[in-house]
Protein backbone atom coordinates (compact mmCIF):
# COMPACT_ATOMS: atom_id res chain seq x y z
CA UNK A 1 0.00 0.00 0.00
CA UNK A 2 1.43 3.36 -0.91
CA UNK A 3 1.79 6.33 1.42
CA UNK A 4 -1.29 8.10 0.13
CA UNK A 5 -3.51 5.13 0.83
CA UNK A 6 -2.08 4.72 4.32
CA UNK A 7 -2.71 8.36 5.02
CA UNK A 8 -6.28 7.93 3.81
CA UNK A 9 -6.87 5.02 6.13
CA UNK A 10 -5.56 6.96 9.08
CA UNK A 11 -7.53 10.07 8.19
CA UNK A 12 -10.78 8.22 7.66
CA UNK A 13 -10.31 6.30 10.89
CA UNK A 14 -9.83 9.55 12.75
CA UNK A 15 -12.98 10.95 11.21
CA UNK A 16 -14.83 7.81 12.14
CA UNK A 17 -13.59 8.03 15.68
CA UNK A 18 -14.68 11.64 15.89
CA UNK A 19 -18.13 10.70 14.67
CA UNK A 20 -18.32 7.91 17.19
CA UNK A 21 -17.27 10.32 19.91
CA UNK A 22 -20.27 12.41 19.02
CA UNK A 23 -22.78 9.71 18.37
CA UNK A 24 -22.10 7.51 21.38
CA UNK A 25 -22.99 10.18 23.95
CA UNK A 26 -26.28 10.76 22.15
CA UNK A 27 -27.28 7.17 22.68
CA UNK A 28 -25.85 7.13 26.19
CA UNK A 29 -27.79 10.22 27.18
CA UNK A 30 -31.05 8.68 26.02
CA UNK A 31 -30.25 5.42 27.75
CA UNK A 32 -29.26 7.19 30.94
CA UNK A 33 -32.55 9.03 31.13
CA UNK A 34 -34.61 6.00 30.27
CA UNK A 35 -32.89 3.73 32.75
CA UNK A 36 -33.08 6.15 35.61
CA UNK A 37 -36.49 7.55 34.90
CA UNK A 38 -38.51 4.57 33.78
CA UNK A 39 -38.82 3.30 37.30
CA UNK A 40 -40.83 6.23 38.51
CA UNK A 41 -43.17 6.33 35.54
CA UNK A 42 -46.52 4.97 36.55
CA UNK A 43 -50.05 5.61 35.55
CA UNK A 44 -50.43 7.74 38.65
CA UNK A 45 -47.37 9.76 37.77
CA UNK A 46 -48.74 10.61 34.39
CA UNK A 47 -52.31 11.33 35.32
CA UNK A 48 -52.37 12.67 38.86
CA UNK A 49 -51.75 16.11 40.17
CA UNK A 50 -48.73 16.82 42.35
CA UNK A 51 -49.01 16.61 46.13
CA UNK A 52 -46.89 17.57 49.08
CA UNK A 53 -45.03 20.27 47.22
CA UNK A 54 -44.05 17.93 44.39
CA UNK A 55 -42.72 15.17 46.56
CA UNK A 56 -45.56 12.90 45.69
CA UNK A 57 -48.28 12.52 43.13
CA UNK A 58 -47.83 13.15 39.45
CA UNK A 59 -47.11 15.73 36.82
CA UNK A 60 -50.35 15.64 34.95
CA UNK A 61 -50.95 19.41 35.09
CA UNK A 62 -47.52 19.99 33.57
CA UNK A 63 -48.28 17.61 30.72
CA UNK A 64 -51.61 19.32 30.14
CA UNK A 65 -49.94 22.71 30.27
CA UNK A 66 -47.36 21.77 27.70
CA UNK A 67 -50.01 20.32 25.41
CA UNK A 68 -52.13 23.47 25.73
CA UNK A 69 -49.13 25.65 24.94
CA UNK A 70 -48.33 23.58 21.87
CA UNK A 71 -51.90 23.88 20.62
CA UNK A 72 -51.90 27.60 21.28
CA UNK A 73 -48.60 28.04 19.51
CA UNK A 74 -49.91 26.19 16.49
CA UNK A 75 -53.10 28.24 16.34
CA UNK A 76 -51.15 31.46 16.10
CA UNK A 77 -48.05 30.51 14.17
CA UNK A 78 -49.41 28.14 11.53
CA UNK A 79 -51.78 30.46 9.65
CA UNK A 80 -49.45 33.42 9.83
CA UNK A 81 -46.42 31.37 8.84
CA UNK A 82 -48.11 29.66 5.90
CA UNK A 83 -49.55 32.90 4.57
CA UNK A 84 -46.18 34.62 4.87
CA UNK A 85 -44.59 31.75 2.95
CA UNK A 86 -47.33 31.99 0.30
CA UNK A 87 -46.51 35.67 -0.01
CA UNK A 88 -42.81 35.00 -0.46
CA UNK A 89 -43.23 32.24 -3.02
CA UNK A 90 -46.31 33.19 -5.01
CA UNK A 91 -46.79 36.92 -4.73
CA UNK A 92 -43.57 38.72 -3.96
CA UNK A 93 -41.65 40.37 -6.75
CA UNK A 94 -37.91 40.65 -6.78
CA UNK A 95 -37.59 43.94 -4.97
CA UNK A 96 -36.17 45.45 -1.82
CA UNK A 97 -39.27 44.76 0.23
CA UNK A 98 -39.08 41.05 -0.53
CA UNK A 99 -35.43 40.93 0.39
CA UNK A 100 -36.26 42.62 3.66
CA UNK A 101 -38.91 40.04 4.40
CA UNK A 102 -36.46 37.22 3.74
CA UNK A 103 -33.82 38.92 5.88
CA UNK A 104 -36.34 39.36 8.66
CA UNK A 105 -37.11 35.66 8.64
CA UNK A 106 -33.41 34.94 9.07
CA UNK A 107 -33.17 37.48 11.87
CA UNK A 108 -36.17 36.12 13.71
CA UNK A 109 -34.62 32.68 13.66
CA UNK A 110 -31.46 34.00 15.26
CA UNK A 111 -33.01 35.80 18.19
CA UNK A 112 -32.17 34.04 21.48
CA UNK A 113 -35.09 32.41 23.22
CA UNK A 114 -34.62 34.50 26.38
CA UNK A 115 -34.96 37.68 24.32
CA UNK A 116 -38.28 36.34 23.07
CA UNK A 117 -39.15 35.83 26.72
CA UNK A 118 -38.41 39.48 27.47
CA UNK A 119 -40.38 40.58 24.44
CA UNK A 120 -43.30 38.38 25.36
CA UNK A 121 -43.27 39.73 28.88
CA UNK A 122 -43.22 43.37 27.83
CA UNK A 123 -45.73 43.11 25.05
CA UNK A 124 -48.12 40.30 25.85
CA UNK A 125 -48.04 40.17 29.62
CA UNK A 126 -47.76 43.87 30.33
CA UNK A 127 -48.71 45.97 27.33
CA UNK A 128 -51.66 43.90 26.21
CA UNK A 129 -52.62 43.14 29.78
CA UNK A 130 -52.81 39.42 29.19
CA UNK A 131 -50.93 38.69 32.41
CA UNK A 132 -48.85 35.56 32.79
CA UNK A 133 -51.17 33.29 30.94
CA UNK A 134 -51.46 30.50 28.43
CA UNK A 135 -52.34 33.16 25.89
CA UNK A 136 -49.19 35.18 26.51
CA UNK A 137 -47.03 32.07 26.51
CA UNK A 138 -48.55 30.76 23.30
CA UNK A 139 -48.13 34.07 21.52
CA UNK A 140 -44.50 34.26 22.58
CA UNK A 141 -43.78 30.72 21.47
CA UNK A 142 -45.67 31.40 18.24
CA UNK A 143 -43.42 34.29 17.23
CA UNK A 144 -40.44 32.15 18.05
CA UNK A 145 -41.75 29.30 15.89
CA UNK A 146 -42.62 31.55 12.96
CA UNK A 147 -39.30 31.40 11.09
CA UNK A 148 -39.21 27.61 11.14
CA UNK A 149 -42.75 27.31 9.83
CA UNK A 150 -42.15 29.94 7.17
CA UNK A 151 -39.01 28.20 5.95
CA UNK A 152 -40.60 24.76 5.88
CA UNK A 153 -43.73 26.06 4.14
CA UNK A 154 -41.62 27.97 1.64
CA UNK A 155 -39.74 24.81 0.70
CA UNK A 156 -42.99 22.89 0.43
CA UNK A 157 -44.53 25.49 -1.87
CA UNK A 158 -41.42 25.72 -4.02
CA UNK A 159 -41.37 21.98 -4.51
CA UNK A 160 -44.78 21.95 -6.20
CA UNK A 161 -44.08 21.67 -9.96
CA UNK A 162 -44.26 24.95 -11.80
CA UNK A 163 -46.39 23.38 -14.52
CA UNK A 164 -49.37 23.13 -12.19
CA UNK A 165 -49.37 26.90 -11.87
CA UNK A 166 -48.84 27.31 -15.60
CA UNK A 167 -51.84 25.12 -16.38
CA UNK A 168 -54.01 27.04 -13.99
CA UNK A 169 -52.98 30.45 -15.29
CA UNK A 170 -53.35 29.38 -18.91
CA UNK A 171 -56.98 28.50 -18.24
CA UNK A 172 -57.60 31.97 -16.89
CA UNK A 173 -57.52 31.38 -13.14
CA UNK A 174 -56.53 34.22 -10.85
CA UNK A 175 -53.42 34.06 -8.72
CA UNK A 176 -55.31 33.19 -5.58
CA UNK A 177 -57.33 30.50 -7.35
CA UNK A 178 -54.08 29.04 -8.66
CA UNK A 179 -52.55 29.01 -5.19
CA UNK A 180 -55.66 27.61 -3.59
CA UNK A 181 -56.41 24.79 -6.03
CA UNK A 182 -53.12 23.99 -7.74
CA UNK A 183 -50.39 24.72 -5.22
CA UNK A 184 -51.47 24.63 -1.59
CA UNK A 185 -53.09 21.18 -1.65
CA UNK A 186 -49.81 19.69 -2.84
CA UNK A 187 -47.71 21.66 -0.38
CA UNK A 188 -49.69 20.56 2.65
CA UNK A 189 -47.54 17.50 3.39
CA UNK A 190 -44.37 19.56 3.62
CA UNK A 191 -46.12 22.25 5.60
CA UNK A 192 -47.50 19.73 8.04
CA UNK A 193 -44.17 18.02 8.55
CA UNK A 194 -42.40 21.32 9.17
CA UNK A 195 -45.10 22.46 11.55
CA UNK A 196 -44.97 19.36 13.71
CA UNK A 197 -41.20 19.67 13.88
CA UNK A 198 -41.43 23.30 14.88
CA UNK A 199 -43.99 22.51 17.55
CA UNK A 200 -41.80 19.77 18.98
CA UNK A 201 -39.11 22.40 19.52
CA UNK A 202 -41.61 24.76 21.11
CA UNK A 203 -42.71 22.03 23.51
CA UNK A 204 -39.20 21.77 24.92
CA UNK A 205 -38.49 25.46 25.33
CA UNK A 206 -38.14 26.95 28.79
CA UNK A 207 -36.79 30.48 28.41
CA UNK A 208 -39.74 31.98 26.54
CA UNK A 209 -42.22 30.72 29.10
CA UNK A 210 -40.25 31.70 32.20
CA UNK A 211 -41.91 35.04 32.57
CA UNK A 212 -44.92 34.66 30.37
CA UNK A 213 -46.84 31.70 31.62
CA UNK A 214 -45.07 29.21 33.77
CA UNK A 215 -46.00 28.44 37.33
CA UNK A 216 -44.44 25.82 39.50
CA UNK A 217 -46.98 24.34 41.80
CA UNK A 218 -50.50 24.48 40.46
CA UNK A 219 -52.27 21.29 41.41
CA UNK A 220 -55.45 22.25 39.63
CA UNK A 221 -55.88 22.50 35.90
CA UNK A 222 -56.35 25.86 34.18
CA UNK A 223 -59.85 27.17 33.62
CA UNK A 224 -59.23 29.68 30.87
CA UNK A 225 -56.55 30.89 28.53
CA UNK A 226 -55.81 33.67 30.94
CA UNK A 227 -54.63 31.29 33.60
CA UNK A 228 -51.10 30.39 34.45
CA UNK A 229 -50.15 26.84 33.86
CA UNK A 230 -47.46 24.32 34.70
CA UNK A 231 -45.23 23.19 31.88
CA UNK A 232 -42.85 20.26 31.62
CA UNK A 233 -39.62 22.10 30.74
CA UNK A 234 -40.10 24.73 33.43
CA UNK A 235 -41.03 22.03 35.87
CA UNK A 236 -37.84 20.12 35.23
CA UNK A 237 -35.83 23.29 35.60
CA UNK A 238 -37.31 24.14 38.95
CA UNK A 239 -37.05 20.70 40.51
CA UNK A 240 -33.43 20.46 39.37
CA UNK A 241 -32.32 23.76 40.72
CA UNK A 242 -34.60 25.20 43.27
CA UNK A 243 -36.45 22.59 45.20
CA UNK A 244 -34.40 20.50 47.58
CA UNK A 245 -35.09 16.95 48.57
CA UNK A 246 -37.05 15.88 45.57
CA UNK A 247 -36.41 12.18 44.97
CA UNK A 248 -34.07 11.92 42.03
CA UNK A 249 -36.26 9.39 40.24
CA UNK A 250 -38.99 11.99 39.96
CA UNK A 251 -36.60 14.38 38.25
CA UNK A 252 -35.45 11.68 35.85
CA UNK A 253 -39.02 10.66 35.22
CA UNK A 254 -40.00 14.23 34.42
CA UNK A 255 -37.05 14.50 32.04
CA UNK A 256 -38.09 11.22 30.45
CA UNK A 257 -41.66 12.37 29.95
CA UNK A 258 -40.48 15.61 28.36
CA UNK A 259 -38.00 13.86 26.09
CA UNK A 260 -40.63 11.26 25.29
CA UNK A 261 -43.16 13.89 24.31
CA UNK A 262 -40.68 15.71 22.09
CA UNK A 263 -39.55 12.48 20.47
CA UNK A 264 -43.11 11.39 19.90
CA UNK A 265 -43.81 14.60 18.03
CA UNK A 266 -40.61 14.16 16.01
CA UNK A 267 -41.65 10.63 15.19
CA UNK A 268 -45.02 11.85 13.98
CA UNK A 269 -43.25 14.33 11.74
CA UNK A 270 -40.98 11.65 10.32
CA UNK A 271 -43.87 9.26 9.72
CA UNK A 272 -45.82 12.01 7.99
CA UNK A 273 -42.86 12.78 5.79
CA UNK A 274 -42.38 9.14 4.80
CA UNK A 275 -46.10 8.65 4.23
CA UNK A 276 -46.39 11.63 1.94
CA UNK A 277 -43.24 10.80 0.07
CA UNK A 278 -44.81 7.49 -0.88
CA UNK A 279 -47.96 9.16 -2.06
CA UNK A 280 -46.08 11.74 -4.03
CA UNK A 281 -47.91 12.55 -7.21
CA UNK A 282 -45.04 13.91 -9.24
Amino acid sequence: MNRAKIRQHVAFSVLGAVTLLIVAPILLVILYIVINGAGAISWEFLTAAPRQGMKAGGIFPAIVGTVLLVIGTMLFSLPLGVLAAVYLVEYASDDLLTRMVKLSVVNLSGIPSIVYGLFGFTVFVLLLHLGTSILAGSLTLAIMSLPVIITASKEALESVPFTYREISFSLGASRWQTVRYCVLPYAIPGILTGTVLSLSRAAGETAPILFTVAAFYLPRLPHSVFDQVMALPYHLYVISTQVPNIPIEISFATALVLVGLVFLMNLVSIILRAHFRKKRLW
Partner: protein
Amino acid sequence: MVEEPVIKTVDLNCYFGSLQVLKNLNIEIQPNEIIGIIGPANSGKTTFLRALNRLNYLHRTYTQTGEILLDGCDISRIGDNLLRKKIGIIFALPQVLPISIFDNVAYGPKVHGMTDKKAVSRSVEEALKKAYLWEEVKDRLRESAVRLSGGQQQRLCIARTLAVEPELILYDEPCSGLDPISTAKVEDAMQELKASYTQILVTNNTSQASRVSERCAFFLMGELVEIGPTKTLFTNPKDKRTDDYITGKFG
Protein backbone atom coordinates in the same frame (compact mmCIF):
# COMPACT_ATOMS: atom_id res chain seq x y z
CA MET B 1 -65.78 41.94 -47.42
CA VAL B 2 -62.64 41.50 -45.37
CA GLU B 3 -63.32 40.26 -41.87
CA GLU B 4 -61.49 41.76 -38.97
CA PRO B 5 -58.47 39.62 -38.09
CA VAL B 6 -58.72 37.71 -34.84
CA ILE B 7 -55.19 38.64 -33.90
CA LYS B 8 -53.15 41.56 -35.13
CA THR B 9 -49.77 42.52 -33.78
CA VAL B 10 -48.26 45.93 -34.37
CA ASP B 11 -44.49 46.24 -34.08
CA LEU B 12 -44.29 43.64 -31.34
CA ASN B 13 -40.89 43.32 -29.67
CA CYS B 14 -40.32 40.83 -26.84
CA TYR B 15 -37.41 40.78 -24.41
CA PHE B 16 -36.29 38.48 -21.64
CA GLY B 17 -34.08 40.79 -19.67
CA SER B 18 -31.76 42.28 -22.24
CA LEU B 19 -32.15 39.47 -24.74
CA GLN B 20 -34.50 40.36 -27.59
CA VAL B 21 -36.49 37.35 -28.68
CA LEU B 22 -39.00 38.81 -31.14
CA LYS B 23 -38.24 41.70 -33.45
CA ASN B 24 -40.81 44.03 -34.90
CA LEU B 25 -43.46 41.42 -35.47
CA ASN B 26 -46.40 42.46 -37.62
CA ILE B 27 -48.75 39.58 -38.27
CA GLU B 28 -52.48 39.03 -38.73
CA ILE B 29 -54.38 35.87 -37.95
CA GLN B 30 -57.67 35.40 -39.78
CA PRO B 31 -60.82 33.92 -38.23
CA ASN B 32 -61.28 30.15 -38.40
CA GLU B 33 -58.00 29.50 -40.09
CA ILE B 34 -55.36 27.05 -39.01
CA ILE B 35 -52.04 28.83 -39.43
CA GLY B 36 -48.76 27.05 -38.97
CA ILE B 37 -45.72 28.72 -37.45
CA ILE B 38 -42.50 27.02 -38.43
CA GLY B 39 -38.85 27.74 -37.89
CA PRO B 40 -35.78 26.43 -36.11
CA ALA B 41 -35.35 26.48 -32.34
CA ASN B 42 -35.05 29.84 -30.60
CA SER B 43 -36.72 31.75 -33.40
CA GLY B 44 -39.35 33.22 -31.12
CA LYS B 45 -42.28 31.00 -32.08
CA THR B 46 -43.16 29.99 -28.52
CA THR B 47 -42.61 33.53 -27.28
CA PHE B 48 -45.06 34.77 -29.92
CA LEU B 49 -47.72 32.31 -28.80
CA ARG B 50 -47.27 33.10 -25.15
CA ALA B 51 -47.34 36.82 -25.81
CA LEU B 52 -50.89 36.42 -27.10
CA ASN B 53 -52.22 35.13 -23.79
CA ARG B 54 -49.71 37.04 -21.71
CA LEU B 55 -48.18 33.89 -20.25
CA ASN B 56 -44.73 35.36 -20.85
CA TYR B 57 -45.36 37.59 -17.86
CA LEU B 58 -45.01 34.56 -15.58
CA HIS B 59 -41.30 35.07 -16.15
CA ARG B 60 -40.03 37.89 -14.01
CA THR B 61 -37.63 39.32 -16.61
CA TYR B 62 -40.09 39.61 -19.49
CA THR B 63 -40.91 42.93 -21.15
CA GLN B 64 -42.48 43.82 -24.46
CA THR B 65 -43.23 46.83 -26.63
CA GLY B 66 -45.80 47.18 -29.37
CA GLU B 67 -49.44 46.23 -29.51
CA ILE B 68 -51.41 43.05 -29.70
CA LEU B 69 -55.05 43.31 -30.74
CA LEU B 70 -57.65 40.63 -30.19
CA ASP B 71 -60.71 41.29 -32.34
CA GLY B 72 -59.53 44.85 -32.65
CA CYS B 73 -59.11 45.35 -28.91
CA ASP B 74 -55.74 45.98 -27.25
CA ILE B 75 -55.18 42.94 -25.06
CA SER B 76 -53.47 44.91 -22.34
CA ARG B 77 -56.91 46.36 -21.66
CA ILE B 78 -58.45 42.94 -21.21
CA GLY B 79 -57.98 41.33 -17.81
CA ASP B 80 -55.71 38.27 -17.73
CA ASN B 81 -58.55 36.02 -16.59
CA LEU B 82 -60.80 36.95 -19.49
CA LEU B 83 -57.99 36.97 -22.03
CA ARG B 84 -56.91 33.46 -21.14
CA LYS B 85 -60.48 32.30 -21.31
CA LYS B 86 -60.68 33.53 -24.88
CA ILE B 87 -57.27 32.25 -25.86
CA GLY B 88 -56.43 28.69 -24.89
CA ILE B 89 -53.04 27.03 -25.13
CA ILE B 90 -51.83 23.45 -25.50
CA PHE B 91 -48.26 22.93 -24.35
CA ALA B 92 -45.63 20.69 -25.89
CA LEU B 93 -45.52 18.04 -23.20
CA PRO B 94 -48.89 16.85 -21.96
CA GLN B 95 -49.30 18.42 -18.54
CA VAL B 96 -52.22 17.29 -16.49
CA LEU B 97 -53.08 17.99 -12.89
CA PRO B 98 -52.87 14.90 -10.67
CA ILE B 99 -56.63 14.82 -10.21
CA SER B 100 -59.43 12.95 -11.94
CA ILE B 101 -60.06 13.24 -15.66
CA PHE B 102 -63.37 14.91 -14.94
CA ASP B 103 -61.85 17.42 -12.54
CA ASN B 104 -59.09 18.29 -14.98
CA VAL B 105 -61.60 19.33 -17.60
CA ALA B 106 -63.96 20.89 -15.08
CA TYR B 107 -61.20 23.08 -13.61
CA GLY B 108 -61.55 25.80 -16.24
CA PRO B 109 -65.31 26.26 -15.91
CA LYS B 110 -64.97 26.09 -12.14
CA VAL B 111 -62.52 28.95 -11.86
CA HIS B 112 -64.66 31.03 -14.18
CA GLY B 113 -67.58 30.70 -11.84
CA MET B 114 -69.67 27.83 -13.15
CA THR B 115 -71.25 26.23 -10.10
CA ASP B 116 -74.24 24.30 -11.42
CA LYS B 117 -73.18 20.65 -11.36
CA LYS B 118 -75.29 19.68 -14.35
CA ALA B 119 -73.87 22.51 -16.45
CA VAL B 120 -70.35 21.50 -15.52
CA SER B 121 -71.00 17.87 -16.46
CA ARG B 122 -72.38 18.94 -19.78
CA SER B 123 -69.38 21.17 -20.47
CA VAL B 124 -66.99 18.39 -19.62
CA GLU B 125 -68.77 15.89 -21.85
CA GLU B 126 -68.94 18.27 -24.81
CA ALA B 127 -65.31 19.24 -24.47
CA LEU B 128 -64.16 15.63 -24.29
CA LYS B 129 -66.24 14.79 -27.36
CA LYS B 130 -64.77 17.64 -29.35
CA ALA B 131 -61.29 16.51 -28.41
CA TYR B 132 -62.03 12.97 -29.59
CA LEU B 133 -61.46 11.60 -26.12
CA TRP B 134 -64.96 10.99 -24.82
CA GLU B 135 -65.36 7.43 -26.08
CA GLU B 136 -62.12 6.33 -24.48
CA VAL B 137 -62.71 7.79 -21.04
CA LYS B 138 -66.46 8.06 -20.58
CA ASP B 139 -66.53 5.11 -18.23
CA ARG B 140 -63.63 6.21 -16.10
CA LEU B 141 -64.07 9.90 -15.60
CA ARG B 142 -63.20 9.64 -11.92
CA GLU B 143 -59.87 7.96 -12.51
CA SER B 144 -56.70 9.95 -12.15
CA ALA B 145 -55.61 11.71 -15.31
CA VAL B 146 -52.00 10.70 -14.86
CA ARG B 147 -52.95 7.14 -15.75
CA LEU B 148 -53.77 8.11 -19.34
CA SER B 149 -51.31 7.61 -22.15
CA GLY B 150 -49.36 10.54 -23.58
CA GLY B 151 -51.67 10.92 -26.54
CA GLN B 152 -54.77 10.72 -24.38
CA GLN B 153 -53.33 13.25 -21.96
CA GLN B 154 -52.67 15.68 -24.77
CA ARG B 155 -56.26 15.33 -25.97
CA LEU B 156 -57.31 15.88 -22.38
CA CYS B 157 -55.38 19.15 -22.48
CA ILE B 158 -57.31 20.09 -25.61
CA ALA B 159 -60.57 19.19 -23.86
CA ARG B 160 -59.84 21.28 -20.81
CA THR B 161 -59.00 24.23 -23.03
CA LEU B 162 -62.23 23.77 -24.99
CA ALA B 163 -64.25 23.60 -21.79
CA VAL B 164 -63.83 27.32 -21.20
CA GLU B 165 -65.08 28.06 -24.71
CA PRO B 166 -62.20 30.03 -26.19
CA GLU B 167 -62.23 31.61 -29.61
CA LEU B 168 -58.54 31.10 -30.34
CA ILE B 169 -56.50 27.98 -29.60
CA LEU B 170 -52.71 28.02 -29.55
CA TYR B 171 -50.69 24.84 -29.99
CA ASP B 172 -47.04 24.84 -28.96
CA GLU B 173 -45.52 21.79 -30.69
CA PRO B 174 -48.32 19.66 -29.30
CA CYS B 175 -47.28 16.38 -30.90
CA SER B 176 -43.58 16.49 -30.18
CA GLY B 177 -43.89 13.83 -27.50
CA LEU B 178 -46.50 11.66 -29.18
CA ASP B 179 -46.48 8.54 -31.33
CA PRO B 180 -47.81 8.73 -34.92
CA ILE B 181 -51.26 7.37 -34.08
CA SER B 182 -51.82 9.85 -31.28
CA THR B 183 -50.47 12.58 -33.51
CA ALA B 184 -53.00 11.68 -36.18
CA LYS B 185 -55.81 11.80 -33.62
CA VAL B 186 -54.74 15.26 -32.48
CA GLU B 187 -54.52 16.49 -36.06
CA ASP B 188 -57.98 15.11 -36.77
CA ALA B 189 -59.35 16.96 -33.79
CA MET B 190 -57.78 20.18 -35.04
CA GLN B 191 -59.50 19.80 -38.41
CA GLU B 192 -62.86 19.29 -36.75
CA LEU B 193 -62.35 22.32 -34.53
CA LYS B 194 -61.68 24.54 -37.52
CA ALA B 195 -65.34 25.25 -37.94
CA SER B 196 -65.72 26.97 -34.60
CA TYR B 197 -62.25 28.09 -33.58
CA THR B 198 -59.22 29.89 -34.92
CA GLN B 199 -56.03 27.90 -34.36
CA ILE B 200 -52.34 28.70 -34.41
CA LEU B 201 -50.01 25.73 -34.60
CA VAL B 202 -46.33 26.09 -33.78
CA THR B 203 -44.48 23.07 -35.01
CA ASN B 204 -40.97 21.84 -35.70
CA ASN B 205 -42.37 19.29 -38.07
CA THR B 206 -42.69 20.73 -41.55
CA SER B 207 -44.73 17.82 -42.82
CA GLN B 208 -47.24 18.33 -40.04
CA ALA B 209 -47.47 22.00 -41.00
CA SER B 210 -48.14 21.13 -44.62
CA ARG B 211 -50.76 18.54 -43.60
CA VAL B 212 -52.74 20.65 -41.21
CA SER B 213 -52.43 24.35 -41.94
CA GLU B 214 -53.78 26.52 -44.76
CA ARG B 215 -51.36 29.37 -44.18
CA CYS B 216 -47.86 29.19 -42.82
CA ALA B 217 -45.44 31.67 -41.32
CA PHE B 218 -41.70 31.14 -41.17
CA PHE B 219 -39.88 32.61 -38.17
CA LEU B 220 -36.12 32.89 -38.03
CA MET B 221 -34.14 34.37 -35.11
CA GLY B 222 -37.05 36.42 -33.86
CA GLU B 223 -38.17 37.76 -37.22
CA LEU B 224 -41.13 36.89 -39.38
CA VAL B 225 -39.38 36.06 -42.63
CA GLU B 226 -42.23 34.96 -44.81
CA ILE B 227 -45.92 34.24 -44.54
CA GLY B 228 -48.33 32.85 -47.11
CA PRO B 229 -50.52 29.94 -48.18
CA THR B 230 -48.95 26.69 -47.07
CA LYS B 231 -48.70 25.14 -50.51
CA THR B 232 -46.93 28.18 -51.92
CA LEU B 233 -44.56 28.51 -48.98
CA PHE B 234 -43.46 24.94 -49.31
CA THR B 235 -43.19 24.64 -53.05
CA ASN B 236 -42.26 28.14 -54.07
CA PRO B 237 -40.97 30.21 -51.17
CA LYS B 238 -40.09 33.79 -51.90
CA ASP B 239 -37.21 34.08 -49.43
CA LYS B 240 -34.08 32.01 -49.77
CA ARG B 241 -33.92 31.43 -46.02
CA THR B 242 -37.36 29.89 -46.08
CA ASP B 243 -36.28 27.63 -48.88
CA ASP B 244 -33.14 26.59 -47.00
CA TYR B 245 -35.12 25.70 -43.89
CA ILE B 246 -37.78 23.73 -45.71
CA THR B 247 -35.31 21.77 -47.74
CA GLY B 248 -33.51 20.89 -44.57
CA LYS B 249 -30.30 22.81 -44.96
CA PHE B 250 -30.56 23.85 -41.32
CA GLY B 251 -32.91 23.60 -38.37
